């Protein structure tokens, strides 16, 4: 194999100097001058109610208020996969905290003060906060208009119910599968909602100039998708895609929460009625908790059959999702997990029902892991219990049933090449899985936990990426792409790919944040697909530039193209070792020929990538037939947990996680993802606990009461492990790993507790309190 110069190297991040010096510009850092106005929203104080009247008169009297807007001003629907959402609530509100009106004023303080004076009269409707209650026949209907909503063809909403989408998978013969089983375990697992908690809250500024052009600066993972949704939603105002421009500076954390469109549409819409002004809306931390996407809540019912020698024969898996008040994005979480709810296992007989249920809680949406964390909590707990019942080591049980390349998934497509077995070997070796544990401290007990994971990018079958690449006079490069570096190191890795093809060091490549007017199309920075998809586009753009360079040399110097190559920023020739033409000599100004004329000109590469093999055309009743997922990334995690017998307080002594990156384009950045992602996963199981009252109001929308980990909560030792089984269609064999790093955390903690104490906890979070109470009460099984 050819040795790479920049691929596979721990290249220093190209955004490093900006970010550690304070120079990096985030959306809130941009100045807009004297014509900047501030918006403040009036939010619903009911989770489900008819809006009877809105009185804005008192607010309008406040000095400094420019205008007050309500739903009547913007009667438009929007949404990514299903148009079930409104810019402002129309005839009714569907969650506590929903935007009902907005005040625009000359200062943020005045806007805030005036917003408190807007009076909204409600007629309360029955509130449904539990997905199982929402499924009952007499449950209040949250979206009576569901049957009329536009949606993607792979959604199956059930009109006149609260079921927004029902993904069904049927494979093999379930009844027969259970007949073959010697042991069947049936149980239910519960995972609550979680918040992304990016440290930067959502912020967006809309400006509609006197020529009729709308520009939106936003803290987003999805500039082009935002432009598309703004243009679609605001089309009644005469806007087209050409008139809408989205500029996305550095983003202070995304984790899925800044994908799609949430609050950004508010300042975009408000601006259209305030020509010439810039209108800014920045969420407070409380609004960030209560009115952006939240991770969906899950109740998962498992019934799994196995033979006595440890082979899985059947799985009946019903997943009920608390998807919240609007599911335009969240319903695709439900879909994605429905397709993949067998986990990374070979299971011949399968029935999956993944059901997206409307509730009167904030909209559920994408969160790092896209539903797989929730699904794997139950699945990996269930598998551990089955192995234990059969007297088989849980790691061995997984080895026996692990999916391999060429096996069929639940929907009938073939599994891609993967390093699942290697991941198992490496994490178990890293924590000495077979070595018995004993705590030296009698008040503490130790346990080991293990979990496998898999996840595929969830995206439309034609989600695409594209790239422009232009040379500068000194052969430095501007790589112009539209993914977002939300911290994962995207800009650096894309620069490495272009660097490898063109022999230009990454340090000489600048990647700027996107502007939809100037940067080529990218669907969104989500799904952990950007390394793979945009990486292919960048590679194609670099190859395009290289081909132009070699063709020019061939034309001028008459050297055969197949003897020419790029090395150390120059063109060289395998037939003529003396030939050496530095790129900086010609990539802008061309090459002078004998008569003084020039050949060539500025070299500009372009590339794109779309997976042309993906299809969502499976049978709606069985899921069989399509190819909805491009590939899976797999891995394994294992940890050693110390538990205090009296307080239930837990400490992770050692955690190992292996992920199959296909090809580690930048191993240091992957290790960074593992370290950070694992911590975020551990937080969902050990610390974070979102609480709502019966009226659907979140009780802890701040960092004092919703505890995300601090520097004091870090595991004693984290061992990040990279596995590399190439993805045939990935750039240099790479596939994405960003979200996956969270996935094994929760079940491996649950499994370690069972190992240490014999207590099985079937609902998250697993707080110290829950563990201590189980010990005190002598409970072995905690629902």
């Amino acid at each position: 194999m050819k040795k790479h110069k920049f691929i596979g190297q721990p290249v220093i991040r190209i955004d490093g100097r900006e970010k550690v010096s304070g120079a990096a510009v985030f959306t809130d850092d941009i100045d807009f001058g004297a014509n900047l106005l501030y918006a403040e929203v009036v939010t619903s104080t009911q989770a489900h109610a008819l809006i009877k009247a809105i009185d804005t008169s008192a607010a309008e009297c406040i000095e400094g208020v420019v205008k007050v807007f309500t739903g009547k001003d913007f009667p438009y629907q929007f949404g990514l996969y299903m148009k079930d959402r409104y810019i402002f609530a129309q005839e009714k509100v569907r969650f506590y905290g929903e935007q009902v009106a907005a005040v625009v004023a000359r200062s943020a303080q005045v806007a805030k003060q005036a917003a408190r004076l807007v009076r909204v009269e409600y007629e309360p409707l029955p509130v449904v906060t539990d997905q199982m209650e929402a499924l009952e026949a007499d449950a209040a209907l949250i979206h009576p208009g569901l049957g009329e909503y536009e949606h993607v063809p792979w959604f199956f909403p059930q009109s006149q119910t609260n079921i927004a989408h029902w993904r069904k998978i049927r494979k093999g013969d379930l009844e027969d599968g259970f007949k073959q089983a010697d042991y069947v375990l049936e149980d239910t697992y519960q995972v609550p909602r979680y918040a992304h908690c990016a440290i930067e809250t959502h912020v967006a500024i809309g400006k509609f100039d006197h020529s009729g052009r709308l520009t939106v600066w936003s803290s987003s993972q999805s500039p082009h998708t935002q432009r598309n949704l703004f243009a679609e939603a605001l089309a009644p105002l005469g806007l087209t895609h050409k008139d809408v421009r989205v500029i996305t500076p550095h983003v202070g954390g995304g984790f899925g929460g800044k994908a799609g469109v949430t609050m950004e549409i508010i300042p975009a819409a408000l601006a259209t009625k305030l020509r010439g002004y810039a209108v800014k809306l920045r969420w407070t931390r409380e609004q960030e908790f209560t009115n952006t996407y939240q991770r969906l809540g899950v109740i998962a019912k498992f019934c799994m059959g196995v033979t006595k020698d440890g082979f899985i024969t059947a799985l009946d898996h019903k997943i009920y999702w608390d998807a919240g008040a609007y599911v335009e994005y969240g319903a695709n979480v439900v879909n994605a997990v429905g397709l993949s709810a067998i986990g990374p296992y070979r299971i011949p007989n399968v029935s999956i029902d993944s059901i997206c249920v409307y509730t009167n809680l904030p909209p559920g949406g994408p969160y790092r892991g896209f539903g797989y964390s929730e699904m794997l909590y139950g699945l990996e707990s269930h598998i551990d219990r089955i192995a234990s019942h059969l007297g088989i080591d849980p790691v061995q049980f997984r080895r026996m049933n692990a999916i391999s390349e060429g096996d069929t998934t639940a929907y009938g497509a073939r599994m891609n090449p993967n390093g699942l077995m290697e991941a198992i070997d490496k994490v178990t070796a890293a924590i000495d899985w077979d070595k018995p544990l004993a705590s030296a401290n009698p008040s503490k007990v130790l346990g080991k936990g293990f979990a496998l994971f898999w996840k595929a990018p969830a995206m439309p079958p034609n989600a695409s990426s594209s790239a422009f690449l232009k040379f500068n006079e000194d052969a430095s490069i501007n790589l112009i792409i539209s993914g977002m570096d939300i911290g994962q190191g995207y800009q650096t890795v894309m620069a490495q790919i272009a660097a490898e093809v063109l022999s230009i060091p990454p340090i000489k490549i600048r990647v700027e944040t996107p502007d939809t007017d100037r940067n080529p199309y990218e669907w969104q920075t989500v799904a952990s697909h950007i390394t793979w998809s945009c990486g292919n586009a960048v590679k194609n753009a670099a190859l395009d530039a290289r081909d132009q360079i070699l063709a020019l040399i061939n034309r001028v110097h008459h050297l055969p193209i197949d003897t020419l190559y790029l090395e150390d920023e120059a063109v060289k020739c395998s037939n003529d070792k003396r030939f050496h033409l530095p790129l900086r000599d010609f990539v802008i100004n061309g090459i002078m020929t004998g008569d003084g004329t020039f050949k060539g000109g500025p070299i500009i590469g372009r590339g794109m990538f779309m997976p042309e093999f993906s299809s969502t055309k499976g049978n709606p009743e069985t899921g069989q037939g399509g190819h909805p997922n491009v590939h899976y990334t797999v891995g394994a995690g294992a940890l050693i947990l110390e538990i205090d017998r009296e307080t239930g307080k837990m400490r992770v002594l050692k955690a190992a996680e292996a992920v199959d990156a296909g090809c580690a384009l930048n191993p240091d950045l992957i290790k960074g993802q593992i370290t950070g992602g694992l911590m975020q996963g551990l937080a969902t199981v050990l610390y974070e606990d979102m609480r709502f009252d019966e009226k659907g109001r979140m009780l802890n929308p701040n960092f004092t009461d919703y505890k995300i980990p601090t520097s004091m909560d870090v595991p004693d030792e984290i061992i990040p492990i990279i596995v590399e089984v190439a993805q045939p269609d990935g750039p240099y064999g790479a596939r994405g790993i960003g979200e996956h790093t969270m996935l094994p955390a929760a079940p491996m903690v649950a499994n370690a507790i069972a190992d240490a104490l014999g207590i099985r906890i079937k609902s998250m979070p697993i707080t110290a309190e829950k563990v201590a109470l189980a010990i005190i009460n002598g409970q072995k099984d905690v629902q």
Partner: protein
Amino acid sequence: MRQVTITLNGESRSCLVKPNETLLDVLRDKLGVKSPKCGCDHGDCGSCAVLLNGKSVRSCLIFAIECEGMEIRTLEGVSGDKLSALQEAFIEFNSFQCGYCAPGVIITATELLETNPHPSLDEIKEALSGNLCRCTGYTPIFDAIMAVTKKEDE
């Protein structure tokens, strides 16, 4: 409104402030210093940390009017014409990802190293416990600080 004069990153600066304006808002909106970030506005996250007379404070919890005559250092002042050894170590160890919390984290770590040039790992953890980072899992931040303390030994 009242005129307030401070020394900001070594320069004397004055501006008119309202009694209820926070130091964070005044630094960002009136004095053009953007590295302190707003993450929670309640003193929970530490992204707005600045050095006030050499001590790290949450600028969202301090009124600008209280700072008359005081010396304030932000990340812009730490950076100056050349990055500090700590900032270079942050690049080397990938001690940031999205970069939003980095200004507050670096300010806090700068204070730590100025007052305690050889902190133990526990002291580092303790010092940073008021700075939330959602991306890195903190370990790379510890690594950068430890590396700087070791470098100084050489």
